[in-house]
């Protein structure tokens, strides 16, 4: 994992600036005719998009072979900006759509883009089963701690005491630790990244894409306009800098003894559980059946 993480992002070929962006032109991967995009100023989703496309570029994944499957939410709308095969599906279900697509088309490189509400609330059941199955795809959950698209309601990752439009006295529910959930459900690669560090996030995404099996990546992505305002978190630069310094620890652990969300959220690759990819395993198991098939009526 260290091969990609924390190292010079272009694997040593970067220029003196060390940012490794010299040969990466994001415009080559975007549907420029859809600009300007709809994201709010300061929204982390755009940074995550950049990191993803940068990773796609460095791995030289052909755009024609790239399939983006997204759910509903601000997160789900991000996919449409990518110049690839893009499928904007229904709320909470992108992993289920992607399951069919992955089994039908093992030749495609599938990336699921989902939100914290999309993935953990309405789509929670699909997430745990996708982790368990281990089909080859990369699930990127953009965690902005809020339902952004619908205007700022509480989400399964909203920290305790946070203000949202549906928690007028502050959130009283503990938040999910999505990565722990994914790892427990069997995801064969689990990682977390922050939008403050785009090169590291890009490297994390490279790990996810290159991993054969189901990768779950949580991206801490600020919702500045809704969540930030509602909780007086300051300007977007202030918010994003806080990702590094404290991950907003003061809000955790007030309601339950063992908060789901740890005070210091670790980033990078958090767990690996190498095992056979589901599609490969299914096809191998079925070879024997096929050999004995009668060709009677097809």
């Amino acid at each position, binding site marked *: 994992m260290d091969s990609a993480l924390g190292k010079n992002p272009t694997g040593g070929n970067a220029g003196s600036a060390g940012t490794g962006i010299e040969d990466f032109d994001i415009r080559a991967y975007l549907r420029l005719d859809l600009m300007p995009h709809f994201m709010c100023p300061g929204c982390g989703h755009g940074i995550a998009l950049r990191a993803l496309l940068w990773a796609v570029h460095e791995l030289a994944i052909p755009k024609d072979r790239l399939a983006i499957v997204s759910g509903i939410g601000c997160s789900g709308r991000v996919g449409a900006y990518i*110049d690839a095969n893009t*499928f904007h599906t229904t709320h909470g279900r992108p992993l289920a759509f992607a399951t069919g697509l992955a089994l039908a088309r093992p030749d495609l490189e599938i990336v699921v883009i989902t939100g914290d509400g999309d993935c953990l609330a309405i789509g929670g059941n699909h997430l745990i089963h996708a982790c368990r199955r281990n089909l080859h795809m990369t699930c990127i959950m953009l965690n902005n701690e809020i339902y952004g698209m619908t205007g700022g309601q509480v989400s399964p990752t909203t920290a305790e005491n946070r203000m949202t439009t549906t928690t007028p006295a502050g959130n009283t529910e503990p938040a999910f630790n999505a990565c722990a959930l994914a790892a427990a459900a069997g995801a064969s690669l689990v990682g977390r990244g922050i939008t403050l560090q785009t090169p590291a996030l890009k490297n994390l995404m490279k790990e996810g894409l290159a991993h054969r099996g189901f990768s779950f990546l949580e991206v801490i992505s600020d919702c500045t306009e809704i969540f930030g305002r509602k909780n007086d978190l300051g300007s977007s630069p202030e918010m994003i800098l806080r990702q590094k310094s404290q991950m907003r620890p003061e809000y955790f652990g007030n309601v339950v003894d063992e908060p789901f969300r740890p005070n210091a959220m670790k980033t990078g690759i958090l767990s690996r559980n190498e095992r056979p990819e589901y599609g490969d395993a299914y096809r191998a198991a079925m070879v024997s*059946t096929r050999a004995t098939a009668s060709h009677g009526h097809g």
Partner: protein
Amino acid sequence: MLASVRQNLQGNQACALGAIAAGCRFYAGYPITPSSEIAEKMAVELPKVGGTFIQMEDEIASMAAIIGASMGGVKAMTATSGPGFSLKQENLGYGAMAEVPCVVIDVMRGGPSTGMPTRPAQGDIMQSRWGTHGDHPIIVLAPSSVKEAYDQTIRAFNLSERLRTPVVVLLDEVIGHLVETIEIPHIDTIERAERKWATEARETYLPYGETDDGIPAMARPGDGYRSHTTGLTHGPSGFPTQKPAEVNDMMQRLLGKIDRHRDIVDDVETVGCDDAEVLVVTVGITARAARRAVRQARDAGIKAGLFRPVTLWPFPENQFRAVEARVHSVLVPEMNAGQLCLEVERLSARRTKIARINRIDGEAIEPAHILSTIEELGRHG
């Protein structure tokens, strides 16, 4: 010689074999009585032809997975019963909106809610038409024998691929579990329709543009089109729009496309409709009882007829109106509290007497019951 084979099959199994004969290579489902034999058959048969079976975590996921597979270019199907059919509705609407071919089999059982899992009913007649929200096109086929379960499943795939729309095959528990010996044609004699795939230049390709036949060509992922698919209201480019003119154009094409192909969509069985005075309209197992009752009535000198919409939705209104114009009474027997009769009433002239037989106790409607009602209507005509 391309010989057919005779096989003893259950309605559900016939659907599975029909699907495979039609070219279905992906099945996703979730077990539910009385449809589970379809999944079980597909699990065994699909791998033999290089296809994929998956049991998903629920019916929502199953519906999503078949659409995902179909968007990838593989013919796909799921099967379920009432409670699962309800769960599939949101993604069924996605299939209709994004124009993704797929086949959904609903083997009706007693409802509402968990209802009577092992008892027959025909309570999903309206849900199969209007189950998902918003105006949408849909085709529903209603077999009434094991042979027809096989044939109509093939037809479901062909219509689905040609018209880029989800197609529902609506069985009742009796047809699903009925065992009959049927003639299965040689695979090479089966007509299989393939989707219209995009072949033109990417620059001029419009994923949802108007075409001569109302059916836009679909881009296969990997073929270089890199198109966008969404359940949001979209323009010809496939990207979301809320411009009234664009929305209207898209919706009009979407809602009108099935009607542009009624020649291949409509399918009706009629018995004695040329001179009928009392007309029975029904589907599924109830139509078998009705066919017998109609024959007995005719033997007894009553001019009875049967009108069976094999394609239930869109309802074959022209064919129905032509027959209805000559009768004085219409009888609608159905295993629900009165659903098909609503369509019949809508399409009938005011002078026509409309009678119903409704059974909601989990028992099938018997020929004798239909016959006695035909006799009564015949007397008072």
